[in-house]
């Protein structure tokens, strides 16, 4: 057994991917748009699949979602988890349906639900990967979401990297101080079981450590006018003054709306045949 430094599929990689996703460091078209326009785009694509049962329309919307994912440059970790989730869901339901006497027809019935879920998930990925914490909290604030929600979102983002670091440290300590299983077992199941146990128990010291830091944060918020701002709206106006809807924002949202319309219209025009509606997404 020789150990090497892995750049992919290591704990460090997961940490970096989380940060890249949360802080949208990869760029992409939506990250240059006004956050309110991104949320509007998201609402369009997330709602569209729920108004139809037509597989052809859903395929079109699924493709639209996939294009969104490509334009937003979603990272491999999130994409991988999405694929595992989606395929796992299909396979799992299929196996279950065979147990209860289903056949391949069940698969067709499952397609509709999974296309819907897939389209909505991809729109979510594309939108939220493109919004860094400040943009997201500004957008929520401008849409009259409660102050506490907008702040909570950005504070969550601020804490994320710190919690991840802390988690990695505690997990390392767990690995060093717990005895490794004497034999790995078949396919190393003992090792895997121990890793899983340690990964879960590593959360408790973190919770206790974080609890200790909250008091300072709450006091600091008080001294920096967080509660004052809730009662006095001029701070909100100043904060949001920089938000501007540009022609590009309008164009992207309008094009998406048209594409969704096309997805609904084209299969109807072509009859029942499952038309590949990819061309409409341009």
């Amino acid at each position: 057994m020789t150990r090497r430094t892995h750049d992919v599929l290591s704990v460090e990689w997961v940490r970096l991917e989380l940060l890249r996703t949360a802080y949208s460091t990869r760029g992409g078209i939506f990250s240059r748009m006004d956050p309110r326009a991104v949320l509007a785009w998201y609402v369009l694509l997330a709602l569209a699949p729920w108004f139809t049962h037509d597989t052809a329309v859903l395929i079109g919307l699924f493709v639209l979602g996939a294009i969104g994912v490509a334009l937003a440059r979603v990272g491999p970790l999130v994409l991988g988890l999405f694929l595992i989730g989606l395929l796992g869901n299909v396979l799992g339901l299929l196996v279950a349906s065979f147990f209860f006497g289903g056949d391949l027809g069940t698969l067709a019935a499952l397609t509709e639900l999974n296309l819907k879920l897939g389209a909505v998930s991809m729109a979510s990925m594309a939108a939220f990967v493109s919004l860094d914490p400040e943009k997201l909290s500004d957008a929520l604030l401008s849409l009259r979401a409660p102050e506490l929600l907008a702040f909570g979102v950005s504070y969550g983002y601020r804490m994320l990297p710190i919690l991840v670091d802390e988690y990695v440290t505690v997990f390392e300590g767990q690995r060093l101080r717990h005895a490794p299983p004497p034999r790995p077992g078949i396919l190393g199941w003992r090792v895997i079981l121990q890793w899983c146990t340690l990964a879960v128990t590593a959360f408790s010291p973190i919770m206790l450590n974080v609890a200790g830091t909250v008091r300072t944060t709450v006091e600091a918020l008080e001294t920096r006018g967080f509660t004052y701002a809730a009662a006095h709206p001029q701070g909100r106006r100043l904060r949001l003054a920089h938000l501007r809807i540009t022609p590009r924002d309008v164009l992207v949202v309008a094009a998406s709306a048209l594409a969704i319309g096309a997805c609904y219209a084209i299969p109807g025009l072509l009859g029942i045949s499952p038309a590949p509606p990819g061309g409409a997404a341009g």
Partner: protein
Amino acid sequence: MSAPASVPAVTAAPGGAVDPVIVARDLSFRYPGAQRDTLRNVDLTIERGDFVAVVGGNGSAKTTLCKTFNGLIPHYWNGDFAGAVHVDGLDTWESGVAELSSRVGYVYQDFTDQLVRPTVRDEVSFGPLNFGHADFRERTEEALERLGIAHLAQSFVWQLSGGQAHLVALASVLAMRPSVIVVDEPVAELDPARAREIYRRLAQLNREQGITVITIEHHAEFVAEFARSVVLMAEGAPVWHLPVREAMARHADLAAHGVPAPDTVALTAHLGEEQLALDADSAARILRPHLRPGRPSPPPPAPREQDPADAAAAPHRPRSAEVIASLRGVHHGYRSVTGGLQVVLEDLDLDLHAGERIALVGTNGAGKSTLMKLLTGLMVPRRGTVTVDGIDTRSRSAARLADHVSYLYQHPGRMFLRESVRADVALFPTGRRLPDAAELVEEVLDRVGLQQLAERDGRSLSGGQQRRATIGIGLAMRPRLLLLDEPTSSLDIRSRDDVTGMLASLADTVRCAVVATHDMDLVASSASRVIVLDSGAVIADLTPRELFARPELTRRARLTPPQAARIGLALGLDPLPLTAAEVRAALDPALHPAHDPLLDRVPEEAR
């Protein structure tokens, strides 16, 4: 109620109170549910433009006092409040935290918890925006500019080093344009060089902007050098408030309250108050005429070739000694968020021998932690080999290497995995089914002096006790190689001496110990060999005495030698003294008292 000591209560700063910015009268405060008053009949006047150090032992209510200045007491903490505090003419009882926060800025001891926004610019503009200041952009730029961190504006808060994070916290209160800034123990969480940088910035703000600065401080060295007046707190009330020189002359009072005098004061106190030195340079100037006659007078700085005393005191690098760990041609680096590879260690060759006490020093990012993690086997190098106890770290999992090497993290909280100290110490030996696990745990708990507290959760202990608990955890792993990351950071002076003493006594159990540290007093008192890292390469490998005798090297690695060593260097002493007692040995005994209680206790604590 409390009759503060013999000194006639609180004296206003000299020259009569001209323009007080903070006035506390008959101030008492009791936290909700507490049995006794935390603040007791405080009378205190702080003048506009002063630089005040608030000193005193643990539990003397320094922080509570400072929280009455920005109205957190009584408005956020609703206890029993009596008396009055006026800030900038405002009665804190009648105004609110919001109004007071634009007059008094507060930087916390755990300042990273005070940063609430994701990016630096957003963090600094958070206050001005909340209060609806239309000029929030100018305020933000101005605050960043003034502290020299404009280049960090776009950075995310989690990318900052400790020193940078402190400056950001300071900028975020500065953006409110306060007339008073309170800084709670900047030295606790920062290394001495960064803390000095913070103090320089504070002194600059004080001098150029006329901002009143109040710091809570344990380290008399910083108090002496930067403060203009000192408030000594004890049992909830000021014992006295004096200009810094007079305050330092009362070093016995200070020492009695857990603030031992800095070396400069210890060495010059007997010469009288006018001759009292507050920083290393003036100490050297004052002491020069008192040097033992017959010594080579002043500079040139000590040549630092092999000096025999050193060779005897620190027989380091006995080349024949057993090699405990070695690194050969080691390269390592990390992927950054943007995907590039940041090289941290380059082509490193190093042997660590049995019997050595190694200090690993260098700035943040020099590669200290990476080197330690490579030695634990938590990471393997991208190129080259790391061998620990004869085992190539690539051939063994980190969990199995833990039988040979143990690593103690900088933050003790991250090492408490169990419900009690005893369970944490026992985790390793019982998990590995060591036959003598039970005795080992008892022995270790005795050794670190935590038998009484063994059933408590590690997190509920004081800073010094937490450190001792983590050292206990390390000892129970019975390592051949013990690695410690910043074992003395965020400790007050007394607990620091405690931990230093414990490290020195490990010699018989641990074959080789490596300490990564910024604490040069720790290096001077416990290391036999110092490895200086800079940008991923070893730039020097020598004894502490040799290191501190080379100002060009300490400057390059941004290290601040112990005060005694700086005085010795300025005096051109050879061999270079590392403690105040060693400096005194070079002074003329005729001009110096033979028994100086002030000095005699310094080496005791340092050793």
